[in-house]
C-alpha cells in the first residue's frame, strides 16, 4: 500500500516502475499495487506533488509512504528554451511559485517576489499606485546601459523599457495569472539568452489550462492607503519666529496671517480595489484558462489614479496522439493613468505656511464663493499683481487642481508555440514559437491659462504624445533527449529572430488664445517631435545537458548574437557557458545519510549587453533641429542639420560570471537551502566617455571603456520547524552580500544630478570605487558634533578648499540584503509575514542639503525650509554646503513589508473553499535615516512620493 505520510490516507494512481526498465504499474483506488519484481530491484514510486521515492525490493510486501513534496525537488523549472527538473539544475536559479508569492495588495509582478530571492534587490520607485520597480540581480551590472534583467513571459522576451505614460512595463500582467517566477542569476544559466541576459533573466510562467471540468476562481480585495509620514518642515509658528528673528523688515512684512499645512493638503487617504476571475477547464477537449482582472487604485497624492483591466487566455491543445502540442497565450491590458503632478511634492515643502490656499487678489482663478466673490490660488505676485514672481514656487494645491495629465496604455503580448515530437525519431522534438509584444500609449497634459506662472499673457499649454513599441519574435529549435543506460543526453539547438520597433510622436503647444477664448492656431507655438527606430537581433543557440546516473551533470551552452546596433565588423558576439553539478545525495555512500539533497555546482558563462544603447551609433547621421531651434538668415528661419557623434568601433559589453554553489536538503527536506558565491566581471563596459572633440562631432560618445567587478555570496535557508497534520510552520531566510567595484575606467564620470544650483552632481564613477559613489567635501564638526558651516577638510593640503578637496564616500547600494519570511498554517488559519533588511546603503539627503537660512529669503519671496535647519543652522546655501558629506546618511533599514492573516472555510461556498484574509503592508520601518524613507532607488532623496501604509481585506472563492 502506498499512503500519504502526512494524512495517512491511501494514494491512488501512484506510478511504480522498476528502475532501468519499462515495467511498471499504478496503485488502485485504495493505494494498493502489485508488480513482478526481483529482490534487489529498485522500485521508483512517483506521484504528482509528492517526492519520488526509490526503494530496493527486499520482500514480497512493500508498504511505502510518500511525502508531500513541499520542496518540490521534482518541480520543473523553466529555463531558456526548455525546462529541467529542479534536481537537474546546474546554475544559480531561484524558483518562486504562486504558493510562496507575497500576498495582500499586489499590483505589479515584481512585488510578488520582493524579499524572497537572495541577491535580488527590488525597490519600487515610490508610493504611487502601480509604480515600477528598480530590479537588480546581483548588483549594478553596467554603468550606462540598462541594468534591469530580461523579463520573459511564457517564452516571449519583453522590450527593455516601457512606453511613455506607463508607470511600470510589467503592469500588463495581472499578478493573479502568474504561476511561477524563475530568476536566473548566473551566466551559466542566462547565457542561453546571450546578449539580452547580462543582468539576469526573470522568467514568468503563467497559469495554464487543465483538462477536466471547468472550475472558477474569484479573487477580490479592497485596500486603504494611508500616508505615513511627511517631510518635517517648520510649522507656521516656528516659521514666523524664524522670519521675525532673522529677516529684515521687508520680509517680515511679507508674512501672512494664515496657518497652512501644505503637505496635509496634497496627501489623502486613498482607496483601491482589485478583482480577478479565472476559469480553468477544457472546452471542446482543449485545455483552457481564461482570466479577467480589474484594478482601480487611487494614489495618496491627491488626484493620482491607476486603473487597469486585464484579460488573458491560454489554450493548450494536443493533436496526433499528443505528439503535436500547441500552446497559445494571449494577454491584453489597458491601463489608464491619471498622474497627479509631482511638482506639488516639492512645492508643498517649500511653500510659505503663513499663506492661505486661496486669495481674493490672485488673478489665477480657483472658485467663486456663495457671495459671488472670485477667489484665486494664492500666488507670489509681481509688483503689477499680474503674474507670478519669477522663481517663486507655485501653489501646490493649484498644481494638483489645474494640471491635467493622463495616459492610456494598451499592451498585448501573445505567442503561439508548437512542439512536435517526431514519430520516426523518438526523443526528438521540434519547436517553433512566434511572439508579438505591442505597447501603445496615448497621453497628454493640459495646463490651463489660470495656472500661476511668471509668463506674461500665459494662455496655457498642451502636450500630447503617442508612443508605440513593437517586438516581434520568432524562435525555432530542436530538442533531442536520449538515454543510454546511465547516460542521459538532452540537446537543444535553434535560431531566434527578434525585431524591435519604436515610434514616438509628441506635440507641444504653447497656446495663444484669441479674444473670444478660442485657440489662435497661427500664433501658438507648436512643436512636434517624431522619434522612430528599429533594431534587429539575430541569434543561434545550442545547449547540451548530460547527466550520468543522476549523479554527474553537465550543461554547456553557446549563443551567437548579432545586433544591428553594432557595426558590421563587431556585430556578432559569441557567448559560451559551461556548468557542472554533482548530486552527491545520489551517491551510494550517502544513500543512507541525512541528505535528501546535496548538490555541488560550479559554472562559468559569458553574456553580452547592448540593451539601452541607441541605434545606428556607428553611422554618420544628421539630426534636424526643431522649430524653436532654427537659425535666421535674412527674413527666414532655417532648421539646421547637425552631424551626430559617431563611434564606429562599438562592441559588445561582455559579462563573465563564475559561480559556485551548494544546494542541500535534510531531515525530509525540513531544512534545506543553498549557498552561492560568484565573481562577475563586466568587460568593455559601454559608457559615455569624453573624446578629443576635434575628432568627433560631440565631446562625448558611447564607447567601450571600462571594466567592473561584482563579487558576492548568497545564502538561502528554508526551515520547516513544525509539520503536523494541523500545523505547519515554515521560515525562509536569505542573505546576500555584494561588493561592486570599477576596475578600469580611463577618466572619471560625474553622475547623479541633484537639485540646488544648476547642473550639480553628487556621484562619480572612478576606478577602485563602487559605481555611483558619492563625491563630496568632508565636513568638519564642532565639539558637540554639529557641522560647522563652510568648514571642510583641506584634503589635498593646498591651503584652500576647492573642488580638488572632494573625496569618494559610500554609495547607494547595500552591502548586505536580507529577507525573512514565514508562513504558518493551523487548521483553516493561515498567517504569513515578510520582512527585509538592507545594510550599508547610503542616501544623499537632497531635501536637507538645500536647506539653509538664506533659502527662506530670496528674490522677494519667503520659502519654508525643512526642519533639518534646526540641526545644522546653516546660514548660506552654497555649492560646498550642498556637496558636504554631512548629507550622505546611512540609510540601512529593516522593513516589515507584509503581514497577512487568512481563514479558509473548506465548504464555504456551495461546498467549495472560501478564503478570507486581511493584510497589512509597509507596517514598520526601522532606520536611522533622517529623510522620509530610507529606500530610495539610486540614493538621491528628493521630492520622494511617500510610500503609504496599506491595509487590505480580501476574499478568494473557488467554484
Amino acid at each position, binding site marked *: 500500500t502506498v499512503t500519504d505520510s502526512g494524512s495517512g490516507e491511501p494514494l491512488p494512481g501512484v506510478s511504480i516502475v522498476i528502475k532501468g526498465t519499462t515495467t511498471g504499474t499504478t496503485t488502485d483506488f485504495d493505494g494498493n499495487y502489485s508488480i513482478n519484481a526481483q529482490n534487489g530491484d529498485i522500485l521508483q514510486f512517483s506521484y504528482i506533488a509528492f517526492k519520488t521515492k526509490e526503494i530496493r525490493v527486499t520482500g514480497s510486501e512493500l508498504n511505502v509512504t510518500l511525502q508531500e513534496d513541499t520542496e518540490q525537488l521534482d518541480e520543473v523549472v523553466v529555463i531558456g528554451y526548455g525546462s529541467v527538473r529542479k534536481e537537474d539544475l546546474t546554475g544559480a536559479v531561484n524558483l518562486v511559485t504562486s504558493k510562496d508569492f507575497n500576498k495582500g495588495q499586489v499590483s505589479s509582478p515584481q512585488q510578488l517576489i520582493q524579499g524572497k530571492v537572495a541577491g535580488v534587490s527590488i525597490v519600487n520607485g515610490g508610493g504611487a499606485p502601480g509604480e515600477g520597480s528598480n530590479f537588480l540581480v546581483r548588483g549594478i551590472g553596467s554603468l550606462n546601459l540598462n541594468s534591469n534583467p530580461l523579463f520573459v513571459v511564457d517564452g516571449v522576451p519583453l522590450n527593455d523599457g516601457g512606453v511613455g505614460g506607463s508607470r511600470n512595463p510589467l503592469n500588463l500582467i495581472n499578478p493573479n495569472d502568474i504561476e511561477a517566477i524563475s530568476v536566473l542569476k548566473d551566466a551559466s544559466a542566462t547565457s542561453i539568452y546571450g546578449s539580452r541576459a547580462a543582468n539576469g533573466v526573470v522568467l514568468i510562467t503563467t497559469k495554464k489550462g487543465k483538462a477536466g471540468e471547468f472550475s472558477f476562481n474569484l479573487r477580490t480585495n479592497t485596500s486603504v492607503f494611508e500616508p505615513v509620514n511627511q517631510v518635517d518642515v517648520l510649522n507656521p509658528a516656528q516659521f514666523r519666529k524664524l522670519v521675525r528673528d532673522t529677516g529684515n523688515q521687508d520680509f517680515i512684512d511679507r508674512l501672512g496671517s494664515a496657518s497652512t499645512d501644505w503637505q496635509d493638503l496634497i496627501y489623502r487617504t486613498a482607496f483601491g480595489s482589485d478583482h480577478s476571475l479565472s476559469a480553468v477547464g477544457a472546452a471542446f477537449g482543449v485545455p483552457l484558462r481564461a482570466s479577467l482582472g480589474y484594478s482601480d487604485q487611487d494614489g495618496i497624492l491627491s488626484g493620482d489614479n491607476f486603473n487597469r483591466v486585464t484579460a488573458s487566455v491560454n489554450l493548450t491543445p494536443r493533436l496526433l496522439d499528443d505528439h503535436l502540442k500547441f500552446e497559445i497565450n494571449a494577454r491584453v491590458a489597458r491601463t489608464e493613468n491619471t498622474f497627479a503632478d509631482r511638482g506639488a511634492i516639492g512645492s508643498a515643502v517649500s511653500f510659505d505656511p503663513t499663506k492661505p490656499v486661496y486669495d481674493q487678489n490672485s488673478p489665477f482663478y480657483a472658485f467663486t464663493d456663495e457671495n459671488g466673490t472670485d477667489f484665486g490660488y494664492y500666488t507670489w505676485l*509681481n509688483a503689477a499683481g499680474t*503674474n507670478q*514672481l*519669477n522663481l517663486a514656487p507655485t501653489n501646490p494645491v493649484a498644481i494638483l487642481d489645474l494640471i491635467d495629465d493622463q495616459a492610456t496604455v494598451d499592451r498585448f503580448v501573445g505567442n503561439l508555440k508548437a512542439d512536435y515530437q517526431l514519430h520516426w525519431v523518438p526523443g526528438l522534438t521540434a519547436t517553433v514559437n512566434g511572439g508579438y509584444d505591442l505597447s501603445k500609449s496615448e497621453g497628454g497634459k493640459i495646463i490651463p491659462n489660470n495656472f500661476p*506662472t511668471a*509668463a*506674461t*499673457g*500665459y494662455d496655457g499649454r498642451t502636450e500630447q504624445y503617442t508612443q508605440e513599441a513593437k517586438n516581434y519574435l520568432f524562435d525555432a529549435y530542436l530538442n533531442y533527449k536520449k538515454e543510454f543506460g546511465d547516460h542521459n543526453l538532452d540537446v537543444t539547438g535553434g535560431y531566434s*529572430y527578434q525585431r524591435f520597433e519604436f515610434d514616438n510622436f509628441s506635440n507641444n503647444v504653447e497656446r495663444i488664445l484669441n479674444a473670444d477664448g478660442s485657440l489662435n492656431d497661427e500664433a501658438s507655438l507648436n512643436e512636434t*517631435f*517624431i*522619434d522612430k*527606430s*528599429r*533594431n534587429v537581433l539575430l541569434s543561434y543557440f545550442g545547449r547540451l545537458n548530460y547527466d550520468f546516473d543522476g549523479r554527474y551533470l553537465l550543461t554547456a551552452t553557446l549563443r551567437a548574437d548579432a*545586433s*544591428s546596433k553594432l557595426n*558590421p565588423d563587431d556585430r556578432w558576439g559569441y557567448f559560451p557557458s559551461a556548468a557542472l553539478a554533482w548530486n552527491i545525495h545520489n551517491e551510494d555512500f550517502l544513500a543512507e545519510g541525512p541528505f535528501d539533497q546535496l548538490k555541488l555546482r560550479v559554472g562559468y558563462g559569458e553574456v553580452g549587453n547592448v540593451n539601452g544603447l541607441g*541605434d*545606428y551609433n556607428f*553611422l554618420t*547621421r*544628421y*539630426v*534636424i*533641429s*526643431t*522649430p*524653436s*531651434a*532654427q537659425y*535666421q*538668415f*535674412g*527674413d527666414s*528661419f*532655417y*532648421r*539646421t*542639420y*547637425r*552631424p551626430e557623434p559617431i563611434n564606429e568601433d562599438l562592441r559588445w559589453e561582455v559579462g563573465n560570471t563564475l559561480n559556485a554553489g551548494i544546494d542541500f536538503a535534510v531531515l525530509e527536506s525540513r531544512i534545506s537551502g543553498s549557498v552561492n558565491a560568484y565573481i562577475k566581471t563586466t568587460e568593455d563596459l559601454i559608457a559615455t566617455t*569624453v573624446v*578629443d*572633440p*576635434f575628432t568627433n*562631432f*560631440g*565631446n562625448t560618445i558611447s564607447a567601450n571603456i571600462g571594466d567592473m567587478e561584482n563579487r558576492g555570496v548568497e545564502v538561502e535557508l528554508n526551515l520547516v520547524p513544525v509539520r503536523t497534520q494541523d500545523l505547519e510552520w515554515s521560515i525562509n531566510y536569505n542573505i546576500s552580500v555584494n561588493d561592486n567595484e570599477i576596475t578600469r575606467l*580611463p577618466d572619471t564620470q*560625474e553622475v547623479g544630478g541633484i537639485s540646488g*544650483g544648476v547642473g550639480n552632481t553628487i556621484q562619480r564613477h572612478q576606478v577602485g570605487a563602487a559605481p555611483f559613489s558619492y563625491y563630496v567635501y568632508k565636513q568638519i564638526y564642532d565639539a558637540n558634533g554639529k557641522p560647522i558651516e563652510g568648514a571642510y577638510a583641506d584634503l589635498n593640503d593646498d591651503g*584652500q578648499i576647492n*573642488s580638488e578637496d572632494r573625496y569618494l564616500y559610500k554609495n547607494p547600494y547595500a552591502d548586505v540584503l536580507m529577507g525573512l519570511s514565514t508562513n504558518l498554517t493551523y487548521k483553516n488559519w493561515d498567517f504569513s509575514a515578510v520582512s527585509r533588511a538592507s545594510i550599508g546603503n547610503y542616501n544623499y539627503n537632497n531635501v536637507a542639503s538645500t536647506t539653509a537660512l*538664506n533659502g527662506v529669503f*530670496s*528674490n522677494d519671496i519667503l520659502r519654508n525650509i525643512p526642519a533639518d535647519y534646526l540641526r545644522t543652522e546653516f546660514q548660506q546655501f*552654497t*555649492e560646498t554646503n550642498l556637496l558636504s558629506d554631512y548629507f550622505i546618511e546611512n540609510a540601512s533599514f529593516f522593513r516589515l513589508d507584509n503581514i497577512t492573516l487568512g481563514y479558509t472555510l473548506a465548504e464555504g461556498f456551495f461546498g467549495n473553499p472560501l478564503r478570507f484574509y486581511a493584510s497589512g503592508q509597509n507596517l514598520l520601518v526601522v532606520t536611522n535615516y533622517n529623510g522620509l524613507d530610507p529606500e530610495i532607488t539610486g540614493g538621491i532623496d528628493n521630492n520622494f512620493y511617500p510610500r503609504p501604509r496599506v491595509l487590505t481585506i480580501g476574499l478568494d472563492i473557488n467554484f
Partner: protein
Amino acid sequence: DLDQTPIDPDLFTEVDVYKNAQEAKGALAKLYAGLALTGQQGPAGQADISGVDEGFSQFSRMLFNLNELTTDHAVVGWGDPGLPNLHAMNWGAGNDFTTAMYFRLSQVVSFSNSFISNAAVLSDDAEVAAYIAEARFIRAYAYYNLMDLFANVPLVTEITTALPEQSNREEIFAFIESELQGIESDLKSPGSNEYGRVDQAAAWALLSRLYLNAEEFVGQNRYADVITNADKVINSSYSINTNDGNGNGSAYDELFLADNDTNGAQNEFLFVLTFDGINQQTFGGTTFLTHAPLGGDMDPVLFGVNGGWSGYRTTKGFVDQFDYAVTERDGNNHPVAWNDARAQFFTEGQNYEIETIANTFEDGYALAKFKNVDINGQQGSDTSGDFADIDLPLIRLAEVYLNYAEAVARGAGGDMAKATSLVNELRTRAGAPTITSADIDPDFVLAERSRELHWEGLRRTDLIRFNLFTTGSYLWPFKGGAQNGRAVESFRKIFPLPENVLLINTNLTQNEGY
C-alpha cells in the same frame, strides 16, 4: 536584416543633407547656430555638448564668462561649480566653463570641417562657394578664440578620428590669417549678403582684431596691418547707427534692443548672432544677457522679460571708466548719473562698493544694456517673456573704429585726425563730450573700448594687450579673490586645456602653470 538604417524622419544621411544648395544651407545654418544655440531643440534639449548644464554651454554666454566676468566688467552671485572661480581668477584645469568653451569651439571646428569637405561636391554653385567661404570664416573665428583663450590647441582642418598633435599660437595665427585672406574672393561683397551671414567686411574686421593682438599672440608688431584692414571696413557700406528710434537722446541703446535687426543697428553689425524669442530659443545669448543681470529694484517690464535671474553686476573699476561724465553723486560721493549714454548703470538699491559677491545682488552697480523691447518699448516676440529677440553683434563697426584708433595711437601710421573723428563719432552718438587728437593715446583707447564695447566679450583680451589682466598695475574689486584686488600669476592670461581631454589625447601638453 541586420543592416538597419534610420527610419526616423528627423534623421538624415550625408546624401540627404548635401543633395543640393537648399538642403546644404541647413548644414551651414548649424555652423552659425553652433555659436548661438545649444542644441537641436529650443531652448534646451538634444544638446550639442554634454556634461555641462545646457544653458551654460552657449558660446556667447561662455565668452561673456571667460572674457568679461574675469575682469573689472562683471561679478556674479551664483555659486555654480567653477563660476565664482572666474572672477576670483583661481580656476583649475577641470573648470566647467573653460572646459565647455573648449568643447564648444572645437565642435564648431569639426562641424565646419565636415561642411567644407562635404559641400565641395556642390561648389560649382556660386551660392555654395559662398557657403564654403563662410564656413571657413566661422572656423577661423573659432580658431581665433581657441588661440586667444587656450593658445596651444591642435590645428585640425579635416574630419579624422586620428588623435591630433598639439599646435601653437604661431601656427594657428598663420592659419587664421591665410584663411581670412584666402576666402576674400569667395565671400560676398560688403552688404550684399543676407542679414545674419558674413561678408568680406567681417573677414577684414577679424583680421584687424587679429593684428591688433599680434604682439601678444605671436610677438609681432602688425599694427600697420590693423590700419589697412580697418580702413577696408570703414570704407565699406557699413555705418555707425545714428537712428535714435526710441527718441531717448542716443542711438547707442538701439544696438541692444529686440528689433536691432531692423532699427538701423544692423548697419553696424559685421558679424552677428541672431536670436528670436519664438524660433531661436536658448538660455544663453541675449536671453542670458537680459535676464542674468536683472534683479533688485529693476523693473522687468522695461527689459521686456518676465523677471530677472539676479546674477551679474559690475565693479567700480568699470564705473570709474566714466569718471569724466559724472553729473550727480549720492551721499557717499558715489556717482549715480552720467552724461554718456553708454554708462547704463542701474544704481537704485545697488551699492557702488562690493562687500560680498556670493548670493547677493545689491553689491555692485547693475547694468542695463540688453533690453528685449523694441524702439517703441514693446516686448519682443515671446509673449511669455522668457526668450529674447535681441541679436548679438560679435564684431561691430565701432570696434573696428577703435582698432584703427589704437593702431594709430601706437604709432603705426594712419591718420590721427581720422582716428579722432572716428572716436568722436562714437562719443557724439553717446552724448559724451568730444575729444581732440591730443587726448588719444593707447590708454585712452583702452578706456574708450571699455565704455563702448563692455559686455561684448573683448575685455580680457584688451587688458592682456595692455598687460593689466594679471599684474598689479590695475586692480579691481575681488580681482584674484581679494576684496581690494591683487595680482595673479601671469600664466592666467591663457586658460588651461581641459583635464579630461589631456587624459585621452596624450599628444597634448598642459598649458604652463596648470
